[in-house]
């Protein structure tokens, strides 16, 4: 065996694609390498069988094939014509009387307006996502009042709001979290 196996050059060698130098190098290698010789023979057999596979493909009905091709071609031409027409109309529509023959200016002005609106909206949404100082204080107040209610939640959950308004009113007089200190509705 001589040098690296020229695996990817074996088929080009068999097909006579290689330059004289490359061909000589592969030939020398093949003389001393039984593995590559065997590989080249097997590849050659596969290549000739493959040629038969392709020959074995049966032709379609060519008249039908050509009729189908003509239909597709007509459809393609119609579609291309309609696309061209749509573009022509779009170009005409863009030539508004206010902007005269300057559709690009109209598009540019519209883009600037959209951008300005987007910036304003983005700033607005940024404020709402971060609460101000007043909002935070209000939230803290609510939280501290809610703690008493939560401590006596086991009482609250048994009350009918309309019928036990007195109990609710004096809820803060109950011991925090003591189940024996509450009145249960009858």
């Amino acid at each position, binding site marked *: 065996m001589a040098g690296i196996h020229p*695996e*990817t*050059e*074996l*088929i*080009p060698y068999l*097909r006579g*694609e290689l330059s004289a130098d490359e061909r000589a190098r592969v030939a020398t290698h093949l003389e001393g390498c039984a593995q590559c010789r065997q590989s080249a023979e*097997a*590849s050659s057999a*596969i*290549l000739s*069988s*493959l*040629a*038969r*596979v*392709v*020959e*074995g*493909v*049966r*032709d*379609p009905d*060519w008249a039908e*094939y*050509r009729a*189908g*091709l003509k239909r*597709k*071609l007509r459809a*393609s031409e119609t579609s*291309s014509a309609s696309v061209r027409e749509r573009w022509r109309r779009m170009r005409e529509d863009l030539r508004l009387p206010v902007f005269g023959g300057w559709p690009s200016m109209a598009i540019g002005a519209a883009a600037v307006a959209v951008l300005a609106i987007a910036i304003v909206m983005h700033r607005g949404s940024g404020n709402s996502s971060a609460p101000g100082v007043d909002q935070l204080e209000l939230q803290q107040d609510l939280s501290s009042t809610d703690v008493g209610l939560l401590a006596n939640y086991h009482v609250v959950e048994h009350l009918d709001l309309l019928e036990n308004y007195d109990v609710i009113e004096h809820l803060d007089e109950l011991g925090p979290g003591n189940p024996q200190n509450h009145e249960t509705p009858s």
Partner: protein
Amino acid sequence: VEPSDEDLCRKIAARDGAAFELMVDRHQGRAYRLASSILGNEADARDVSQDAFIRLYESAGRFDGRSRFSTWFYRILVNLCIDHQRKNRWWKRLAPLASPGDNPDERAFDPPSTEAGPEDDAMLKQSISRLRPALAKLSPQQRAAVLLQTQEGFTSREIGEVLHCSEATARVHVHRGIAQLRKLIAKE
């Protein structure tokens, strides 16, 4: 004197219908057979090869003549075949390529008769019937590379032009494709 493919292509770019007809006459058989071998399905081969001719008609003006017309045209065809296979990959997994004879509505695969005796013919048919499903297991690039070489006689450089890769990569596609076919056939 018959006009060359390149001349016809220039006429097609100028919307010469007769030139297009002549071009289709010349290439329809080879285009259909190549598509059929790559796709393994006659109906798909018909559609895709017709689409390739439509693309040829639409983009003939873009053929710059730097490569052979056949290389340019088969690039369109092979790309369409590969795209078609990619789009239908999920479907192919559910319904693998039908073997010849599975569908009575489709024409049965029929290798051409050879001059060899009936015994050799049977062996050849057997070998081909094993190759066909093995071909379907190659990657689209490998299959296209192998078939462009065996069917169209393309060189590695031309295969590289069709597949948008270097000559060395085209050689690797062919080598790996043939090696894979050998392995698959040996397994059976």
